[in-house]
């Protein structure tokens, strides 16, 4: 039993409504911050793709394998989203 059915009071409904509205604002601000991080992220991705070809990619625990150049994925044309 994860939850027990019950009726919500008007005060609880009002509290939830306010919190949901504030969460939308918080979400939008996270999306904007993450969009602004795009240039740094592109650099981090380029470094990652380089590292997995030289040092390797983690497969399990301390097991790693080197990725060959032809395995490196090509960036799609769509927008690079990290927040969904």
């Amino acid at each position: 039993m994860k939850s027990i059915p019950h009726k919500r009071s008007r005060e609880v409904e009002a509290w939830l409504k306010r919190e949901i509205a504030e969460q939308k604002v918080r979400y939008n601000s996270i999306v904007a911050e993450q969009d602004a991080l795009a240039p740094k992220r592109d650099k981090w991705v380029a470094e990652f793709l380089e590292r997995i070809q030289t040092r390797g990619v983690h497969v399990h625990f301390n097991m790693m394998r080197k990725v060959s150049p032809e395995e490196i994925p090509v960036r799609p044309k769509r927008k690079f989203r990290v927040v969904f």
Partner: protein
Amino acid sequence: MARPHIEPFVDRDVQFRKFTMPGFPKGMHYKMLSLDPDNGACTMTVMFEPGYKQPPGMSYSEYELFIMTGSITVGDKVHGPGSYFMVPAGVALGALSSSRGATGLLYYNYGEPSFVESDSDHPRAERSKFVAVNAYDDMQWTSTNVFPATAPGCLVKVLHFDERTQAFTFLYCMTPNFWQDNISYHDCAEEAYHIWGTSWMMQFGDLPTGGYFYRPPYINHGAFGCKLGTLALGRTDSRLYNHFHFNPWTNVEENRERAASRIQHWMPDLYKWINTHGHNHPVDFDFPHGHEHGDMPHHHGDGQVEHAHKSRRRRRKK
């Protein structure tokens, strides 16, 4: 919709507010970390004022409380930093007080925060599932024990494991100079709060002390790094499997498709059976059927996978 993707969010950037939900005593403050708009389930950082007192009582939702600083007293026992409680819905917790104040993390997993004064359990409560442990003093670090596993240097203490959903709550640490060069996603939602320390992820940058995320399933995260070490509390809503890869640009739909394809190859017979009409409403003989249990949406072979029953009124015998 379920909870949105909140990542990253640093609660040090916002102030505590008075917690004014009906039923709760005065003296509790909170910062909302994430909230499910449908059922009100939420995760909050909370602060109990010095002198806070709460009578014995229960919640309509399962909840978890982790003490980060200060202490609380439940009954006659004092619980300091690292104390963890998993309180099933309807289980009455003894009188709670905090003479010098405390801060903690409070998770209401299946409904909005609620408090009903009571010194006895609700008839539907499952007291046997109550957990109280001190994660700092009573438990030792172990490796993650999943396959494929995170890189060496990520250690866990499992505080709670749900037998039915395989959801779990865990303290975890990353050792100084931890690094893991791959990208991961899971079939479960995952949330975590940094009690201390900063770690880095290729998508989101640094997550410092007070940093939090709620990440729905199939969202890429990693590569990972941590220079000085991190202590954090994590939680999943179901079984965690590390789907590792190295394509930074895949999206949720592609990741989900890949996960489904993997299930098809790992468990071909079960996959085929589930997809056969009439068999996609499975019943676990270990647990009450969803109709009675009421916590799991299910379907009747018609593709309405979020189907759930309202409680039925029984007819009185004439």
